């Protein structure tokens, strides 16, 4: 039996493999335990095919795909959805992730037929509005960053990094500098930075952080050599600090004939306040799903346009939009640039629509205010928690996020992980944990501008109460947590040791490894 075909005894809510729970806290069976091969929620005519043109490649093997009728599907996915925390249901203080409010006007606009129902290979004459939208979005991004060009097509932040670093590589090759094989990456960088550099064949040279959490310009100078192709620096950095020597670093990097790649994951702190181009960056990706409010969607899709300096502009990938007569044209043949193409078609149009909608709603003034509020909120949390939590880098104001280490928990037997899981029982998503790697037991908190003062106060009250509990020896509140979530802590070791990545019928279950 490949799936349930026995009169569907495990219908939704009737028990099934996982129990049933309540409608408020459902224990939802798997699709494969409730659907079967005959049911369908889509009415389609049965057609006769007189002569098929399949050349004998017809399917002989079983598909084994369960179907649900429409009411069953609705209930399955609604019940599953209730098991998720979301921005709309509670604060998401995830450092480095910018979990801000996702306006629904964005969603409505992305679904206009003139955006959602157009094909990427329609004649360019029939999509002039789409190209104009790409032009306008580019204008906003270049104006906010003070840069000369933008490549819109990267599909996500890490893809944008790849694109920006490929542009740097292409520029070096075009200028006879292909011998540059080293990329400098500060220790506090996101994991994607060294992974991207290594992906392109560069060797990664780490730059240590200073005691105050920032990058030392003299350490960069010392690491620079004729072999260095670029530095990949995050600004504001992952300790939540604006790099005070960033101009000196940029000047030294350029002096040495290398390029300055900036990880723009934290652009939300400075949009409309300072322009990265003025700081000397050559390339920077912008996560539209962070800074410009396109939804995270449970892990994607993202969008990672890359802004480029004058020096790198000629090395952008295709496609890009260009003026032609009184209209716009799409340059889409890879022969027209040194870099070529990094994705099929034109990138994440659906995200361009949402991001531009957000920009027009906020305006230049509102974006600057949003950045200032994001920074205000992070510093407010820092000020309220500073007496109890341990602040490794007190010398500079926080930007959009504040970093604590775990020294305040010393002797309590409570780890950063335990502390974060206890936050779940109080209705909050945990903060980012154990990142950046430069402090012990990191807790990185980013409230974003979307949180009201009442919410921030409630969050701080909860954090202080948890800290008091930990210090008072109430270990159980932490090590047992979460107790008020759909699941208790999950056994990740078991998942990795005997991976079960797809469902199989109960009779095929392997014996438990214990």
């Amino acid at each position: 039996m490949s799936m349930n075909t026995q009169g569907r005894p495990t219908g939704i809510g009737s028990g099934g493999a996982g129990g049933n729970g309540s409608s408020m806290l459902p224990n939802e069976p798997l699709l494969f335990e409730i659907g079967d091969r005959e049911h369908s929620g889509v009415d389609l005519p049965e057609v006769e095919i007189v002569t098929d043109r399949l050349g004998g490649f017809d399917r002989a093997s079983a598909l084994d795909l369960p179907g649900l009728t429409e009411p069953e599907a609705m209930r399955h996915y609604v019940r599953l959805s209730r098991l998720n925390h979301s921005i709309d249901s509670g604060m998401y203080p995830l450092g480095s992730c910018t979990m801000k409010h996702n306006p629904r006007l964005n969603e409505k606009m992305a679904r206009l037929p003139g955006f959602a129902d157009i094909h990427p290979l329609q004649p360019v004459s029939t999509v002039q509005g789409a190209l104009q939208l790409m032009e306008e979005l580019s204008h906003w991004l270049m104006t906010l960053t003070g840069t000369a060009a933008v490549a819109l097509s990267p599909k996500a932040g890490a893809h944008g990094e790849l694109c920006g670093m490929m542009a740097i590589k292409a520029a070096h090759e075009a200028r006879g500098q292909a011998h540059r094989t080293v990329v400098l990456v500060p220790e506090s960088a996101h994991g994607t930075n060294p992974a991207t550099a290594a992906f392109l064949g560069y060797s990664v040279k780490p730059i240590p952080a200073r005691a105050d959490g920032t990058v030392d310009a003299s350490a960069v100078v010392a690491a620079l050599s004729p072999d260095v192709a670029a530095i990949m620096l995050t600004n504001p950095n992952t300790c939540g600090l604006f790099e005070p020597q960033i101009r000196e670093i940029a000047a030294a990097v350029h002096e040495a004939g290398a390029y300055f790649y900036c990880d723009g994951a934290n652009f939300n702190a400075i949009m409309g306040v300072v322009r990265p181009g003025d700081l000397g960056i050559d390339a920077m990706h912008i996560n539209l799903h962070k800074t410009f409010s396109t939804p995270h969607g449970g892990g994607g899709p993202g969008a990672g346009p890359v802004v480029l300096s004058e020096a790198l502009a000629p090395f952008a990938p295709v496609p890009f939009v260009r003026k032609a007569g009184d209209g716009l044209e799409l340059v889409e043949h890879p022969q027209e640039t040194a870099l070529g193409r990094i994705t099929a078609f034109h990138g994440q149009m659906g995200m361009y629509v949402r991001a531009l909608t957000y920009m027009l709603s906020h305006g230049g003034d509102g974006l600057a205010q949003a950045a200032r509020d994001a920074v205000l909120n992070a510093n407010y949390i820092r000020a309220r928690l500073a007496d109890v939590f341990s602040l490794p880098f007190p010398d500079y104001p926080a930007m959009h996020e504040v970093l604590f280490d775990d020294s305040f928990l010393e002797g309590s037997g409570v780890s950063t992980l335990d502390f974060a899981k206890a936050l779940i029982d109080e209705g909050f998503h945990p903060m980012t944990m154990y990142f950046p790697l430069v402090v012990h037991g990191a807790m990185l908190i980013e409230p974003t501008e979307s949180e009201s003062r009442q919410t921030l106060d409630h969050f701080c009250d909860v954090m202080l109460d948890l800290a008091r509990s930990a210090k008072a020896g109430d270990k159980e509140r932490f090590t047992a947590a979460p107790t008020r979530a759909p699941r208790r802590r999950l056994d990740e070791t078991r998942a990795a040791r005997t991976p079960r990545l797809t469902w199989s019928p109960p009779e095929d279950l392997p014996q438990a490894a214990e």
Partner: protein
Amino acid sequence: MRYLPHSDAERADMLALIGGPDADALFSAVPSDLLLRQPPALPAHSPEFSVEARMRALSARNHAAGDGPFFIGAGAYRHHVPATVDHLIQRSEWLTAYTPYQPEISQGTLQMLFEFQTQVANLTGMEVANASLYDGSTATAEAVLMARRLTRRNRILLSGGLHPHYRDVVRTYLGDDDDLICLPASPVGQGDILSRLDDKTAAIVIQTPDFFGHLRDLKAAADAIHAVGGLLIVVVTEVVSLGLLEAPGALGADIVVAEGQSLGNALNFGGPYVGLMATRKSFIRQMPGRLCGETVDAEGQRGFVLTLSTREQHIRREKATSNICTNSGLCALAFTIHLSLLGEAGLVRLARLNHARAGALADALAAIPGVTLLNRTFFNEMTIRIGRPAAPVVEALARRGILAGVPASRLLPGEPEVDDLIILAATELTSSEDIAALSAALAEELK
């Protein structure tokens, strides 16, 4: 400013508690000569109705696929998406959730991904699938890199039937590389790829239905590449075809990558889409992207977590299998909901309907004087030769309100032998009236 909760009084209060003299003091690390004192030179904030009017004006300047007869495919297909799909994916708990790194409060997303992985594995006839990649083209490039890691060989052969954008993305990912061999485009569905294999070959990449709509013999390809110890990578850009065509896994594929847009996702001018990747169980440690796995919680209840993350960049940094950080979660959700609604019975009916509409289109086109149909086999897409440059004809038909497919020259510029080719697709949304309108207009243009 409707998205910002603070009043000016609250801002001042908060600043007082922080202890700074003014808001600029929070930016004291920024070089003061670079701190912008004025908002950037961009329009000021707008009410919702004004923004909506502006966006509607831009949208109105595009000819939507639903505005008239429509026959474009070439890697993105216009299918009907049930209303339930779009309703569900806009629920807050799906739309505004983060990556499920905290499994206790992310079981919805995780169970959905586990179901998605199973559906993709079953659909492709493979043992395992990941939780999705950006799209079909980047998934293809990742599959090529994965094959190199698995075989410790370098040579990659790309079939002439591979979508040209996919070929270009592989080229970009691999950089200047003598071991990447791209066979010339083959509009008639033949290629000599199998005669070029040797014991240095890591993998061959074959798309079926191919860029020109032909169905390719995967079994022959699998046998030939396995005989020299390499891998077969199969690319599918139209997943609905798998309702009717034999699963690549059943024919010997080692890695299957696909564009999943056809199920649950709108055309969106090219993105966001959803890349599928499925493979053999023994290859999972070299597979890029997120994986969801089953486990139990502290009380023994079944639950799901992201797993095998020691392959990934946030753990392994420069030693990771790829730099990928996100998947295409919400598009994967749309895919899995649509496929759950269809089920096996519905997917087979949908595939048959597509093939039937394409058969009607092929017959109508072949009857037009001056048109030659190049396909002996196809699923829902085909190529015709019209004996004159195709791009101006397609443009002229667009002026009549008919979007009549893609001139092959748009994707294969500078190749005279494809200059007079048009690639056309039909789906369940293609009506007999659409086909009649296209036939009449094309016949007139070719007179």
